[in-house]
Structures are given as structure tokens and as C-alpha cells.
């Protein structure tokens, strides 16, 4: 008797709970948008854009999510995939350009060109051709570019003056940087080294692109899957030889940690180096915190003729599969709204990321925005003046982390030793190339 009573009570209570849970559903379409920005500034700009979107599309609600403070592109990408496997895919995901091939291969995303209306596709006309081109794989437009940045050179104008250099005529090429470093270090201003930049392959890839060369074969992996990586090309070799020379002369330094963007930036801000190469995304930060005269210029060219321009890089917004028809529609509307001219300008002014549309650029120039913010003009013109071709579109590589890690290891190996001959450097790069191509081969095996 007791037992029966207990069981009845139990069932009844559970039923009650269930009844309470079943709430009335309204027909609001909810869109979940995942991005990496968890700082104080950028989510506010995003929310502003979302609020505006919701007034135009009253039946759509956009929830913007970012993960914890130090999460990176890889983490949000992988957690989006994992959530999709659990049937909880977010609708719109920010995907870094290095992950393009994986995003295409893994089958979790719908190409924008399949979702967009004629009208929306037409609105892509004024996106910078080199930028849009980097999102086209096999003739399909997969995502929309959103947060773009490129590497620029920051320098300490006080130090330049003290060393008798003209701060208004910053170094333009590798040779200029070396010459400036000789002057800066000879002046004995108490710097640890002359120049620093994060241990990464990003800068090397820019120098390859500037020389209008490819980083991987098959049209930088865009005509067909990449099978070779050109680590030992003349362009990579030139950059490595220069880098090794700087290092051997005590001109170059890094924190010893891979991809330590913040650590390297702090070294420049605390005046341990007078020249610093890093992403334009840090521009606002440097402007706010530099206790010395800040100068900003273009990423140095390998040589005078290497004017092909920088790669696009940054992140784009992609739409995930497993959504209802309405959600897909709303997601597409949202990504187009997010990257429209008005919001492109708002995003640029609010965060320092580079505008992606010619119309935005023209409008900003007309309004005289860059007269007040001359530093922002540097990364923007650097991008606008880049040629639109496969070299500047950047490499798409399936196992991108693995392949790039091999080049990072090779760079460290080259810097770790004393000054090495060009042939020794080439040998190290060729070994790394072999290892990277083995990674590529292993990956391609499963996706062909």
C-alpha cells in the first residue's frame, strides 16, 4: 500500500512538472550568432547592429554569444561543430579564414550563394574584389567577410628622432628596416632589440603574397585541393634570411612563446623595442596606451617591386546547416545586414577592423574620417591597394594548424641557431615542407 502510494505521488508530481514546462510557443524566429569577441567594446557594437536589425525584422530575435575571454577561432569553430552534432547548431558562426577549407570539407555550412536572394547577391558588387575572392571556393561563395585586419608596422617616433631618423619617412622595405635598426641600436637608447613580431606564419604569408607568389599549389588551394606547400620558395627564403639576419645581429626578438600577440605588444609599449609588427586590430589599443610618439606605417616590403599586396585574412560569417527554412532565411538576412555598408562603417569606426566595401571606403574618405584618424588609413589603403588575385586571396589548407605549425617550428629552428647560410635555411625549410606535405596527404586521403 505504502509503495503504491509513493509511486503514485511520484508520477503525479512529475506529470505536474511536465505540465508547467510546456509553455505556449510564439512564432518568433530565434537566431544564435556565435563570435569570439568577449571584450568590453566590440560586443556593444555588435549589439547595436542587432538592435537595429530586430527593428527592421520584428519577427526575428538575434542572440549574440561569445565564449570565454581567451578562446580563439579554433575553439568556437569546434564547439559549433560539436553542438551541431548534438542537434543544437548555432545559426551563424564567425569563421576565421584559415579554417575555410575545413568549414567547406566538414559539411556543416551552407554556401551563402545558395541562400541569398538575387537582390542580396547584387549587393555584393561593391565588396573589394580581393576580399570577396577569398571566400569563393569551387565557384561557391561560402561566407561573408566581416572582421578584416592586416599586419602593419608600429614604431616609436621618439626613438626615431633620438637616433637621427626621420619619423615621417618610415622604413619601406626589408633593407630599410635593417638600416633603421642599425641606426637605432647604434644610438644605444636602452632597447633590448630593434624590432619584434609574434612567432607566427601570418607575416611570412604576407611577404609571399606581396611578391605575387603562392603559399601552396593548385592556385593557393582554390582550384583544387592543395597537395604541396612552397616553404622553400624564394619568397619564403628571402623573408627567412632577412629574419635570421635581424635575429643574429640582435635586432629581432620575441617572447619565446608562439603567437604571443599580447606579450609582443607589451614589449613594444614598455619600450623594449622601437619597432613592432602586428595586426592592425591592435591599433586602438596602441593609440590608447603608448607613452611615446606612435608612428604607424605599412608592413615592410621584401623589396621595392613586391607590391602585389597583402592577403585578406580575418574572419567571416557563415551560416550553419540543420535549420528550418525560416531560420535559414533570417540567418541570411542577418549576415547581409551585418556586412551592409552602413554597418560596415559602424564596425570599422567602432573597432578598427577594416571596411570590406568600396562604398564604405569612399564614404569614409569623403566624410574626411581619415583626416582625423590617419592611422586607420594605413591598413585600409594597404588592403584597398592590394591586387585581386590568388596570391592575395590567401592559402586554403585543410590541416591548416598542422601545416603552419611546421613552418613555425622551422622558423624557430632557423632563429635558434647562429646566422645560417641561405642553403642551410633552405634545407631546414625543405624538411619542414616534407613534414607539412605528409600532413596534407594524410588529410586529403579522407576527403577525396
Amino acid at each position, binding site marked *: 500500500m505504502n509503495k503504491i502510494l509513493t509511486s503514485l505521488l511520484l508520477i503525479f508530481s512529475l506529470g505536474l512538472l511536465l505540465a508547467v514546462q510546456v509553455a505556449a510557443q510564439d512564432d518568433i524566429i530565434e537566431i544564435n550568432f556565435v563570435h569570439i569577441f568577449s571584450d568590453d567594446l566590440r560586443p556593444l557594437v555588435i549589439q547595436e547592429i542587432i538592435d537595429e536589425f530586430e527593428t527592421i525584422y520584428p519577427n526575428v530575435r538575434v542572440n549574440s554569444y561569445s565564449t570565454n575571454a581567451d578562446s580563439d577561432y579554433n575553439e568556437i569553430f569546434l564547439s559549433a561543430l560539436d553542438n551541431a552534432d548534438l542537434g543544437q547548431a548555432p545559426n551563424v558562426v564567425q569563421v576565421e579564414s584559415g579554417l575555410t577549407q575545413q568549414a567547406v570539407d566538414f559539411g556543416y555550412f551552407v554556401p551563402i550563394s545558395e541562400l541569398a536572394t538575387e537582390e542580396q547577391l547584387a549587393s555584393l558588387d561593391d565588396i573589394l574584389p580581393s576580399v570577396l575572392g577569398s571566400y569563393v571556393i569551387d565557384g561557391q561563395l561560402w561566407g561573408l567577410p566581416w572582421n578584416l585586419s592586416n599586419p602593419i608596422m608600429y614604431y616609436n617616433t621618439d626613438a626615431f628622432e633620438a637616433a637621427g631618423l626621420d619619423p615621417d619617412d618610415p622604413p619601406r622595405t626589408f633593407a630599410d628596416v635593417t638600416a633603421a635598426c642599425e641606426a637605432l641600436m647604434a644610438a644605444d637608447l636602452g632597447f633590448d632589440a630593434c624590432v619584434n613580431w609574434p612567432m607566427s606564419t601570418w607575416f611570412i604569408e604576407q611577404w609571399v603574397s606581396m611578391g605575387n607568389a603562392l603559399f601552396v599549389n593548385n592556385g593557393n588551394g582554390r582550384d583544387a585541393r592543395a597537395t604541396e606547400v612552397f616553404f622553400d620558395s624564394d619568397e619564403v627564403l628571402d623573408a627567412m634570411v632577412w629574419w635570421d639576419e635581424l635575429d643574429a645581429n640582435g635586432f629581432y626578438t620575441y617572447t619565446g612563446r608562439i603567437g604571443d600577440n599580447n606579450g609582443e605588444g607589451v614589449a613594444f609599449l614598455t619600450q623594449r623595442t622601437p619597432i613592432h609588427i602586428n595586426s592592425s586590430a591592435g591599433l586602438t589599443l596602441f593609440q590608447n596606451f603608448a607613452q611615446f610618439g606612435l608612428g604607424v606605417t605599412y608592413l615592410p616590403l621584401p623589396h621595392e617591386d613586391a607590391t602585389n599586396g597583402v592577403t585578406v585574412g580575418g574572419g567571416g560569417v557563415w551560416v550553419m546547416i540543420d535549420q528550418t527554412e525560416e531560420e535559414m532565411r533570417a540567418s541570411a538576412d542577418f549576415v547581409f545586414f551585418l556586412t551592409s555598408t552602413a554597418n560596415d562603417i559602424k564596425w570599422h569606426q567602432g573597432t578598427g577592423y577594416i571596411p570590406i566595401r568600396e562604398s564604405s571606403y569612399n564614404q569614409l574618405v569623403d566624410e574626411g574620417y581619415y583626416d582625423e584618424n590617419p592611422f586607420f588609413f594605413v591598413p585600409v589603403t594597404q588592403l584597398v591597394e592590394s591586387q585581386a588575385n590568388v596570391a592575395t586571396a590567401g592559402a586554403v589548407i585543410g590541416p591548416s594548424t598542422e601545416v603552419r605549425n611546421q613552418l613555425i*617550428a622551422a622558423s624557430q629552428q632557423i632563429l635558434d641557431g647562429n646566422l645560417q647560410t641561405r642553403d642551410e635555411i633552405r634545407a631546414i625549410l625543405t624538411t619542414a615542407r616534407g613534414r607539412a606535405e605528409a600532413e596534407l596527404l594524410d588529410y586529403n586521403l579522407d576527403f577525396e
Partner: protein
Amino acid sequence: MQDNIRFDRLWARAVAIFTVLFLGWFILQEWRGFEPFFRLLWDAVMSTPSAIAYIVNYYGDVETSALFASLGIGAVFGGLVTAFVFVKRQKIITVPRILPGAFWSGVAVAAVFFLFEASMAIVLLSLLVGVVVASYLLDIDTRLFLSKETRQALGTPTARRWMWRGLAVGAIAGAVGSQLLVVPTRHCTFAGDVDPTARWMGYAITLIGALVVLIPAWTFTLRRRGKSTDSTSGYFKGWSTPLLLLVPTLLSLLVFLYYPSFRIAAQSLLRERRGRGAEPTFDCLNNYVNLMNDSVYQNSFMTTITVTVAVVVLSMSVALLIALLASQRVRGANVYRTLLIWPYALSPVVTAAIFISMFRDDRSGLINHMLNSIGADTVRWITDATVAPWVLIAAAVYNILGFNIIFYVAGLQNVPRDLLEAAQIDGANVLQRFFKITIPLLSPYTFFLLVANVTYSFYGIYGVIDTLFPGGGPLLADGQSRAANVLIYKVYEDTFRSGAIQLGNVAAQSIVLFVLVAGITLLQFRYLETRVTYAD
């Protein structure tokens, strides 16, 4: 008395009902999160018949030569070992014990091979052979292992009976057990054209599977009859209430521990990529073979062993010394103790952040700043491949030191003072008292700390490395291995820093790591706990 028990039972039932209600409410609240788990459980239950059908079908199709080979190996191994175990348990023969001297001799032999950079397999093999040979040489009581007496003892009818019994029981259990791990590998290691490494690993897993069945079989056939279990120890009479109370624990263990473990083990036999672009394919033991042949993995393995040994030895010996000092009866001893335990309150990440500010390569690092100011050369603490592991070890030791000190301080308070005083009166000096009384009485603490420290060095060290050496630290001479890239860091990096990784490879890494830690812990329980004196 009777009323009391009844009252308690009602209490227990009330708690159980409340627990179920709470769980029900919680699950409904968080249904979105729970749904996949319940779907998983449901699918598992629903797929049982098809799993059985699969196995039946499987045995219909399997290559007969492979099947007989695996059954044969299991049966022969099981029969021989069981006969031996039975005869030994009946005290008909005795075998050498593994004495501490033998153990350390084995370690010494292995260390020599390690220093001369022999391969991982040779180092482990030399350890095993060293221990066994030294045991035989050192154990005077049993050196007559194969003597005339032993042979005579084996000739008696009792011995023969036990041997036959062992052969029969062992052959059956061994043959059944051999299939346990071989079926998941689809007998692929017994195929004609398989890689030799995979073939040997196949034999090894056949034997391990056999042991999994053999060990319970031994316990079952040799158990003492008529030994009553302590009936007063249990409180609950029925099974429903305790089961209800256990449901939350069992459910979470099932979902978060057992299922993932089996899934990972199964995954380690596949070639699998993330996403829906590539179908997983069965890949025999190739993931393990590739790991064995991967020089980066070998280096990571060796780094892990070195770091673990150094962290365990240093953290425990330093902690004991500090605990001895902290146990002195001085003014404000409590304050000192609290301050000494403090580092344990820091997470590994915070510890590493402190260390990075101390050990930065340039002059902004505290240590280098000091070296610089006294005119000494600065050291590249973070980027020099020979120094970096020691910075890691120092940070890890600092991190876990407080934990060890707590236990040793507590342990030292349990060492009876009268015992120490008696020894002092008998003329034992400080060192003698320490080594002959304090250390043996601390052995339960030492044993526990050993297990905890080994586990920390294998798993807990991740946070320290991720902050101190993101990417795995400086390069080693081969241009691709890294000096602080221990196994746990490597498996995490490989899995979560890149989406492109072949998932079977990282699954195999996890399994190797698991087997390693489980094996070490098992060894510790088997051979060290017997030497622990619990002061009871």
C-alpha cells in the same frame, strides 16, 4: 530500537523520493541539455539486440584461422598461467618476491638504457627483465625456485590434480577472454599481411583480454568456502531505496565516464574525421602503430616520464622537509603552516603566471633581472630546450607542494612522541629516529601522496604548460618535438587546437595515457601498498 530503525527507513525513503523529484525537476528544466544524453541511453538500450545479432553474424563470417589463432593463444596462456597460479596458491612452489632492491636494480638498468637514448620499448623491457632477474638473485628464501625439492613437490598427486584443474579452468577462461578485446579489433591483427608491430600488439591485447576473465576466474575457484560476510555492515535491507539513492551517481558515471571511455576505445580503431564530410573507416591498430613510430610522440612520452619522476621526487621530498620544519613547536607555527600551504590555493594557471613573470627570457623576468644586476649572464629559461623542462618542473612542484605539506604535517602529528622519546633514550640519533620511526610511520601518507602526485604530473600539469609554454615550449634538436610537450598537453592540443586532426589518432593517445596511469597506479597498489604500515 525497532522504532528508530523504522524511522530511519522512512527518512531514507523520503530522501530517495526527494532526490528523484529534484532530478526530475532539474532534467525537465534543462531538457535541451539532457536530451542528447537520454537519446544516447535510449539508443544504447535499443541497439542491444542488433549488437547481439552483429556478434553472431560476425562469428559466422570471421576468418577461421584468425579465430583459432586467437582462441589458441588465449587457451594456452590461460591454461599454463592458471596451473602455475593454482600450484603457487596451494603453496606447492614459491616464487621470488619483488624486493625493493630488485625493483631499484631494475630501475637502474632501465636508467642506463634511457641515458644512452635507447628506444622506449627497450627501456621498458630492460626494466622488466632487470626486476625479474634481480628478484631471483636477491630473494634468498626462494632461490631454490627450480630446485630438487620443488620438482619433488610438483610430482605429488595433489600438485598434479591442481595442475590439471588449472589447465582446464584456465584454458576455457583464457579462450573466452581472448575474444574480449580481439572482437572489437575484428581479428585484424591475425591477418596475413598485417604490420609486425600491429601483430605483436594484437598478441598483447589477446593476453590482456584473457587476463580480464582469468583473474576473476581465479578468485572464484580459489575463494575460501564458508567465510561469512559481515552482515551487520550493510544498513539497507531491500535494494530499491539504495538503488534510488545511487541513480544520480550511476547515471552521471555512465554518461560522463563509462560511455565516453568505451567510445574513445572504439574510436581509436577507426580512421575518423570531424564532421560529415568523410565516413569513418575501420583501421585496425594503425593508430597505435603510427604513434609508436612517431618521433614527436616518443619524445613526448619520454618528457612525460622525466617530468613525472622529477616532480614526484622533488615535490614529496621538499614537502617532507618543510613539513618537518613546520611541525616544530615554535611561536606562530600555525601562521607558518598556513602560509606554506598557500600555494596549493593557486590554480596551475596562476602558478604559471607567477613563474612566467619570474622566468621571462629578457631582462623583464625577475630572475634574469637579478642575474643581470649582479653581473651574471642571463639564462634563456623559456626558450632553451634543456632549461625549459626544469622551469616546468619547478612550477609544478611549487603548485602541488602545499597539498603535500598539508598531508605530511597531519601525518607528523600522528607520530607518537613517546615512541620518538623512547628511541632517544635508547640512544638513537636524530637521523636514525627520522629514518627508522618517522618515515615508516608516515608511509600511508607517502603512499597516498605518491598516487596523487603521479596523477597530478600526468594530468594536472596541463594548466601550467598551457600558460608557461603555449605550443609546447622550445624545439628539440629534431626540429619538431617540443621540450614541454607532455602527453596530456599533446593530446589536448592535437584534439582542440585543430579541427583537421584524425580523431582515431587522438583517441589512441588517450587510451595509451589512460593505460599508463592506470598501470602505474595498479603497480603502486600491488607492490607498494603491501609495504605500507598503517598505524592502527
